């Protein structure tokens, strides 16, 4: 009887989004074919269905796009800030209007649950443009001196985990400050950036201010190496970030990098346990754990370990994995076969090194790229799964006895992007936060984002901040 109480497959309608069979590059306000005529396919990771064929930008296209951006820069940077603001407000509003369409598109192309694209990605995207729109005519008040100047052409390379949100983080502050951009979306998720190109047209944005070049790593490399690019912004892996840092060495290009992480989520014995469990779940299973600031290391005080793990396992058993378009889905698909292989090999290393693996009973769909929520116990600082970024729904559980030990373990990593602290004691939150070498520290919550709040890492998690007043600095000649 009670088993009749099942959730409906409640799929969001695909009909709200119309994906064309092919897309060009977006250069100087027009969709054009790649100079070399190359194309690549983008698939839906939950079904492996081919969604569209997309032009692949090569060096000649980078050249054209940078030229278009350079040409547009003169007028764009000379516009009164209030006029640039109004363009960005228009974009923010059109994104709000088209948010359901974009949410479905993003879910199809990325594999993440519609619940997340609808309730997190898209509202944040619109809010980000809204926020930076307001800065465009207030730069004098931002604390970078009077009349701070833009840099010029920004070359931006973004990842596949939050395709449209990362685009917003890059383009909104760049345009607000008067720069023009050439942006390369990730090869597995090019579609929302191309839809954004259409939004720029609807908003009447001058040609060449935004240029979109889909492609692979070589396209990105050509872009960041282009001599007429004044600013490079990259979000992605630490390995590629180091490559880019070497590429721009010796030039005058301003660089910001937002790279990997191995965030510690620290749970003290006086934590609000039920909410901590929710925060741990959000911390590592949001977006299938494909989040640079994921709380992928759970550091739990030994005295509450058993109680917490029992609660956590019980909670994981209620997670629903499956069709990302289903509104009831909590865990969607892994973005690509390549990423799935990487997660699988790291998890195998975890087992081989003696950590204890656990997953709730969870049926995986037969097609597409899937990985069940996974938890490792008996993990020590020496394990690969405690050190390497897995970028998947895999949580490593470690324990500590005292706050000093928690901080020491949390900081014992080459990364320094995020951390979480769970305790009801305010002074402990602040004392621990003071000691953590991480760019974002969440207390009694996790994975919260806001356009007003700066985000970025310490150490090998990169440098520069995106979001907030601080996010302007990366695009100003200061």
């Amino acid at each position, binding site marked *: 009887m009670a088993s009749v109480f099942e959730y409906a497959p409640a799929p969001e309608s695909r009909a709200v989004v119309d994906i064309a069979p092919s897309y060009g590059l977006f250069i100087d306000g027009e969709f054009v074919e790649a100079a070399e005529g190359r194309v690549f396919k983008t698939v839906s990771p939950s079904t492996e269905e081919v969604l569209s064929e997309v032009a692949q930008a090569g060096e000649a296209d980078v050249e054209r796009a940078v030229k278009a951006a350079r040409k547009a820069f003169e007028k764009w940077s000379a516009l009164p800030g*209030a006029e640039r603001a109004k363009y960005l407000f228009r974009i923010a509003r059109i994104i709000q209007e088209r948010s359901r369409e974009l949410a479905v598109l993003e879910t199809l192309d990325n594999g993440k649950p519609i619940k997340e694209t609808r309730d997190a990605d898209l509202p944040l995207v619109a809010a980000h443009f809204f926020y930076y*729109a*307001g800065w465009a005519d207030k730069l004098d008040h931002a604390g970078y001196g009077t009349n701070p100047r833009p840099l010029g052409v920004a070359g931006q390379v973004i990842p596949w985990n939050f395709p449209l949100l990362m685009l917003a983080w890059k383009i909104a502050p760049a345009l607000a400050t008067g720069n023009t951009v050439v942006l390369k979306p990730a090869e597995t998720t090019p579609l929302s950036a191309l839809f954004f190109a259409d939004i720029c047209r609807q908003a009447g944005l001058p040609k060449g201010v935004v240029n979109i070049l889909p492609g692979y790593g070589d396209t990105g490399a050509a872009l960041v190496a282009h001599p007429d690019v004044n600013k490079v912004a990259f979000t992605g892996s630490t390995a590629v970030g180091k490559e880019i840092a070497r590429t721009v060495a010796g030039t005058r290009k301003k660089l910001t990098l937002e790279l990997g992480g191995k965030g510690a989520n620290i749970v003290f014995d006086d934590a609000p346990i039920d909410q901590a469990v929710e925060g741990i779940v959000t911390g590592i299973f949001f977006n299938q754990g494909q989040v640079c600031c994921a709380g992928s290391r759970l550091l739990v005080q030994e005295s509450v370990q058993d109680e917490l793990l029992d609660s956590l396992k019980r909670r994981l058993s209620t997670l629903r994995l499956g069709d990302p378009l289903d509104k009831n889905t909590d865990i969607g698909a892994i973005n690509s076969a390549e990423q799935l292989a990487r997660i699988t090999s790291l998890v195998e290393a975890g087992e081989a090194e003696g950590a204890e693996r656990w997953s709730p009973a969870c049926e995986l769909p037969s097609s597409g790229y899937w990985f069940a929520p996974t938890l490792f116990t008996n993990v020590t600082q020496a394990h690969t799964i405690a050190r390497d970024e897995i970028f998947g729904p895999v949580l490593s559980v470690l324990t500590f006895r005292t706050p000093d030990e928690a901080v020491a373990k949390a900081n014992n990593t080459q990364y320094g992007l995020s951390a979480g602290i769970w305790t009801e004691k*305010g*002074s402990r939150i602040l004392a621990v936060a003071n000691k953590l070498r991480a760019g974002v520290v969440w207390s009694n919550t996790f994975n919260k984002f806001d356009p007003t709040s700066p985000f970025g890492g310490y150490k090998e998690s990169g440098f520069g901040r995106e979001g907030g*007043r601080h996010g302007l600095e990366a695009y100003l000649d200061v």
Partner: protein
Amino acid sequence: MSDPRVDTRPDARSDARLSVFKTYKLYVGGKFPRSESGRVYEVSDAKDKWLANAPLSSRKDARDAVVAARKAFGGWAGATAYNRGQILYRVAEMLEGRREQFVREVADAEGLSKPKATAQVDAAIDRWVWYAGWTDKIAQVVGGGNPVAGPYFNLSSPEPTGVVVVLAPQESSFLGLVSVLAPVIATGNTAIVVASEKSPLPALSLGEVLATSDVPGGVVNILSGRTAEITPSLAAHQDVNAIDLAGADEVLAKELEIAAADNLKRVLRPQTVDSAQWFATPGTERMTAFLETKTVWHPTGSLGASGSSY
């Protein structure tokens, strides 16, 4: 809404169609009451031609407006800055759609040519956009962490003062009005606006725009009438927290500032502003005039007593 070929002003009655007059009403608590006094006064254009009858607000209307503003304060101040920004931007969007109407009203009120009135209205619309962008930035510009010499976290944040009475500029009936009203509500205060005595119609029409722009009822309350009659009781009102004297002459300003001292209202004194100056990009001073700064201390302590070091 209006056909540009047809002059719908009251005096343009020679056309085939007899126009419908609008009854101008106050805007209080999200509703459009007539004055409780039942009285009106004649409003004329720059050439002394009758335009409309405007409500002559009484002291009772002013008290009602304070009650409405106080009631709305908690919700408005408690709304997220992002939400307030969206709403202020919505005001700009709605005004853009009624641009022609306001150009006509401003031209009539101030005796301006159509291009000049258009410039006033466009600047007023853009001013809403300017302040829409400030809602979620002012705290980052005027607040922040303080590096106190001790184991304490110490953060200063601006908070809205409360209920603010705004005497709108007498000469700039719309751009001036928007320039003094928008900064007050952008930061979370609620306002009671006393419209330009001579030219209240654009202000009263603005009420209609605010009512359809998701601005919660009571956040802005608009009164028309004799400035010198309505404002002394507002300046003395113990449930009003601040007063902007932009529309007061020197004598009235002094009288109101003295009355305001009773409960130490924050007072923004009138500045000599000629109408061209209203076009200039504002700074933050009209916002900070109606902000309090709250500083929170919290111990940070040390990690533990063990003294072990890793």
